[in-house]
């Protein structure tokens, strides 16, 4: 865990606190525990050396940011810095979907087949 505290802000280095590839939603819980230990009004998630953040993890991070930022008591402003282009793009896609959810009516119509026919086709 690496936390750097300046006057009004605490910086949390995500790569050192977690991993260089952030996959799971659980990491938001880990970061929330670190946030609880801070006494500054602002917390900065530093993504230096983080190479990739999954869509699920990006969603969990944005939900965390909103929830902590809108609390009545012990509210904290969370910001993200030093995110590479790919992480930035992932956060933007998820944030855009949160703001304006896509119409999710997608119909999946696969061809239906039995195993024998599939194996015959593959042979």
């Amino acid at each position, binding site marked *: 865990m690496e936390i750097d505290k300046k006057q009004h802000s605490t910086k949390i280095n995500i790569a050192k606190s977690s991993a260089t590839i952030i996959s*799971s939603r659980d990491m938001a819980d880990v970061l929330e525990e670190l946030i609880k230990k801070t006494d500054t009004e602002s917390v900065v998630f530093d993504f230096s050396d983080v190479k990739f953040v999954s869509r699920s993890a990006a969603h969990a991070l944005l939900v965390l940011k909103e929830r902590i930022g809108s609390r009545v008591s012990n509210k904290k402003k969370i910001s993200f810095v030093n995110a590479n282009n790919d992480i930035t793009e992932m956060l933007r896609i998820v944030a855009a*979907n949160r703001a304006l959810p896509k119409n999710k009516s997608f119909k999946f119509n696969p061809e239906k*087949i039995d195993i024998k026919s*599939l194996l015959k086709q593959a042979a």
Partner: protein
Amino acid sequence: MLTRGGGVDRERLEALFSEKIYETLGSISGAQNAVCYPIAELATNIFEHSKKDLGFIFGQFYPKKDYLDICIVDCGRGFARAYKEEKELDLTDEKALIEAMEGNSVKKDKERGYGIRTSKNVVCNALKGGGFILISGSCALVSVGQRERLVSLPNFYWKGSIIAYRIPKPTGSIDIYKYLE
């Protein structure tokens, strides 16, 4: 082996696995996202949905054929039981897979449900020439390129889920964002 409650240790193990896969495929600049995305999304689903504390992930590279296979497995409740327990839906294995591919998550959050479909799209479309198989219960989804087939497996039953996919060695940068919806 991935275990629930591993916290940061599990995250680091998954990161090491993804990095190794990327390195094995030649560390092609601009392709790391495409390699990492399905691993991240599909492995995380073990702990989000299976109700088991253990999952498995395996990779095998075929250097003469220039492709790599990955398999992500859990012995959890499977798709149909997840829909039954979380949404009180009585679905066949086939309908449960279709429901998942249509993005209807068992979670209440309307923004969930993208992981499996978008991972399949990255494997089959972004990583040109990829193939994707998803098995739960007695049904399998087999996707290669644009072709999607749902296969009944009457003499086979897997209690949890098996996801296996094959990705060709990337030859250049890959844009996954148009497949992420």
